[in-house]
């Protein structure tokens, strides 16, 4: 599955498109990350727990989006955009959407 966030897939032509596809995840941190984050608030430094959480979320959202594109019969997704929003005190929601196309 080819993914780009520009209008086209360079070097290939789009022959068919299937509309918008999207994938989203919403993940909560757990108590361990929470306590560590509170400590880090005092001393500073990178919040590795949160970074990992968001990285995993982004990966999963992209995976879901490509899964949906596959179901429609696409082999590439163009014009991908990511959006993050915070839902509830400790959870981050990651949303990825793009246009599912078939390229040759």
């Amino acid at each position, binding site marked *: 599955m080819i993914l780009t966030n520009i209008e086209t897939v360079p070097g290939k032509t789009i022959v068919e498109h299937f509309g918008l596809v999207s994938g989203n995840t919403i993940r909560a941190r757990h108590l361990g990350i929470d306590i560590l984050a509170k400590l880090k608030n005092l001393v500073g430094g990178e919040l590795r727990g949160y970074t990992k959480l968001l990285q995993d979320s982004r990966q999963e959202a992209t995976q879901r989006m490509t899964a*949906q594109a596959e179901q429609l019969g696409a082999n590439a997704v163009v014009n991908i955009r990511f959006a993050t929003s915070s839902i509830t005190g400790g959870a981050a929601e990651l949303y990825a959407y793009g246009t599912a196309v078939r390229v040759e």
Partner: protein
Amino acid sequence: MKYTPRLPRTNVNVSPGSPLKDLLLMLTAATAIMVGIYIALGFAVDALAPRISYETELSIGRFMGRHPILKDAKPAPQDIQELAETIRTQSTDIPFPVQVSIRQDPQVNAFALPGGRIVLTSGILEAIESQNELAFILGHELGHIAHRDHLRALGRGLVLLTLSSLVLESGDSSGANLGKMVVLTELTFTRRQETLADEAGQDALMTVFGHVTGPEQVFSHFAKLADTNYLTRFALTHPETQARIRHLKDRALANGFPSRALVPLHPEPLPAA
């Protein structure tokens, strides 16, 4: 480029599985963890409670002046106070004076609070018929104080309270409701603690009266109030109460404690010890 309208077969953005099952799983895990912490706390507090100095206990006692049990309690009559002090000085090694209060409550009950406060309900005072029974009750409660049992029960509740407030401050209203469900200041004692307090009560009887008649009558009063509270009725038929009576009888036999007649409550003066 052409457009092929198609709809996806499944919804990838929704995880399978019933939310109810999820809830059940999490609640079970949470309960298991809380129970584990409670048990671990029990051991820790049991080890620490005897090390709390009497001075600290007195300050805790002052702090607890506003406990709901003490709220509508009045100081006990002078003769009960004197009896309590007599038992304390001659039968225990509690270094601070005790205060006895009476609480208007038809239930048959007695409490020991930190700082040397004993609370008797009006129900128990109306039920007993002899000074021996009163001495046994006071001795029993003083035994709890001497063994620091009440500190253990309070200590565990206190640590739970601190823990839950720490954890729940990041939550929303649903968290606060959960916190209220954690029952805290329950002054319940284990069977062993009750038995040891019974023995202290028996010793008090020996000290004041020179014989140990009395406990059986006290236990029977729990049953007499069966009409008002099924729990107290349960207390006598419960094998535990029978075991306590038997244990005291065995101890009296082993130590050669005699049994004589009971001294009625009023208006006879207190026998000098």
